[in-house]
């Protein structure tokens, strides 16, 4: 039985197609997912992301505890700022990718994926035992609404006095939106400018309606997980379970930069990651653009002259490119003459560097 978010009734009223995602009943799309995708690229889209996990660490050693538990150097984060980071096991395998917000000197919020946050919370509790910190999973109490797209700031500005101009990318500040307390973060998973609003469950539905009303003149649309996936794919952003897994290290995924070896003290996975940091991985994460119209999908083999040289991790038709695109792990030496085995047929693809899409700033 899937768990509903606090916005379930709102989605049903909008006629959403609901789907199970990581144990949650989530909106897949409200109408045409292409229209939702395009709304985020050209105007704004509104997302329910209440399935994400929010884990709070509070106490004088919260920063040190995170330095030990995660691969990043979080104790140097300035209050009000956020970092993309990861949690790995002793072997260096990725347990989840995370965004960590420093809310105050002694308070951090760790945002984890829906499929992983219970495991992440458990690990954070275990890894923090010798530190003066309290770890609390507040995922069941916190709702998350994202407004994403080039008009997101104008829309949000009609509902808050917060200094949005002063809020940088990967920053978050406590504020009031439509009369409700919210953590306003300038983060997202779409490749566009936008905001993520963390609010109490009971405030989610009224805030959703307020944002829809405020965004109406700007062309806002509710947007489901289907468009979220194509948007993040175009932006070259990894998805845990597709590009990231416990079988891969951050270096395998081309994200070794998130591992901060120069921070003080030991951290979980340090020894394993130091051993691999200078070894070029056998396969690297690349972008593929299909020449034809058939769509490479998760798990399809990448081939060259009939031999398997890689595997697709995510694929979808791209609205922005007008062609199917995919992310794939491909042998380091294989650059040209590539194809994807689409149900037995070798469909030619071109290798490109990620991302596929970059917004005009």
């Amino acid at each position, binding site marked *: 039985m899937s768990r509903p978010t606090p916005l379930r009734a709102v989605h049903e009223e909008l006629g959403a197609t609901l789907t199970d995602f990581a144990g949650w009943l989530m909106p897949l*799309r409200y109408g045409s997912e292409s229209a939702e995708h395009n709304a985020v690229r050209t105007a704004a889209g509104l997302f329910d992301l209440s399935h994400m996990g929010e884990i709070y660490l509070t106490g004088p050693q919260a920063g040190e505890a995170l330095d030990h538990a995660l691969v990043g150097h979080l104790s140097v984060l300035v209050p009000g700022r956020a970092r993309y980071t990861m949690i790995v096991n002793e072997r260096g395998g990725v347990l989840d990718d995370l965004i960590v917000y420093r809310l105050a000197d002694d308070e951090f919020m760790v945002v984890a994926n829906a499929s992983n946050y219970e495991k992440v919370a458990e690990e954070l509790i275990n890894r923090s035992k010798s530190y003066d910190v309290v770890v609390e999973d507040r995922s069941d109490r916190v709702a998350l609404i994202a407004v994403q797209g080039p008009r997101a700031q104008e829309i949000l500005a009609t509902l808050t006095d917060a200094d949005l101009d002063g809020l940088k990318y990967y920053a978050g500040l406590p504020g009031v939106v439509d009369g409700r307390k919210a953590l306003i973060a300038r983060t997202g998973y779409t490749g566009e400018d936008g905001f993520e609003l963390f609010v109490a469950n009971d405030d989610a539905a009224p805030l959703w309606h307020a944002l829809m009303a405020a965004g109406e003149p700007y062309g806002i649309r509710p947007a489901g997980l289907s468009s979220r996936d*194509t948007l993040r794919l175009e932006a070259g952003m990894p998805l845990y379970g597709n590009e990231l897994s416990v079988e891969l290290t951050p270096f395998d995924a081309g994200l070794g930069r998130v591992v901060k070896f120069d921070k003080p003290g030991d951290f979980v996975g340090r020894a394993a990651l130091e051993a691999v940091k200078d070894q070029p991985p056998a396969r690297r994460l690349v972008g593929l653009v299909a020449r034809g119209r058939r769509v490479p999908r998760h798990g399809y083999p990448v081939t060259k002259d009939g031999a398997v040289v890689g595997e697709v991790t995510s694929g979808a*038709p791209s609205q922005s490119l007008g062609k199917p695109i995919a992310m794939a792990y491909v042998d380091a030496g294989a650059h040209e003459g590539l194809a994807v085995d689409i149900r037995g047929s070798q469909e030619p693809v071109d290798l490109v560097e990620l991302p596929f899409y970059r917004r005009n700033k």
Partner: protein
Amino acid sequence: MSNIPDDLSYTKEHEWVAGLDDGITVTVGITAFAADALGDVVYVQLPEVGANVEAGDSIGEVESTKSVSEIYTPVGGEIVEVNQAVVDDPSLANSDPYGDGWMFRVRVEGEPEDLLSAEEYTALTSGQS
């Protein structure tokens, strides 16, 4: 509730069949229920004109943003026409599944597989949507 026209026959694979009455050539497409379930259709692959097919064969595919489904022919015979318009503009399968979004025509040989009436298809899809 999806649109299910009374005057068509249906398959359990969510296809519709028109023209059974004259028994010579039938037209086949995917139902509005199928199109809604797929989401935006982005690619349609259809058989070659002139191909001989048997009832129940997988003869093409429909891809949406999220998934891919096979197209089965509910009747055997010769493919006499395919809808190039829906190949060129797959969104027709969403916008007009019973009209401009039709898929292919077959000159019927032999018996069709078990087809459903509109009433039976309505019963099949209610509770799935």
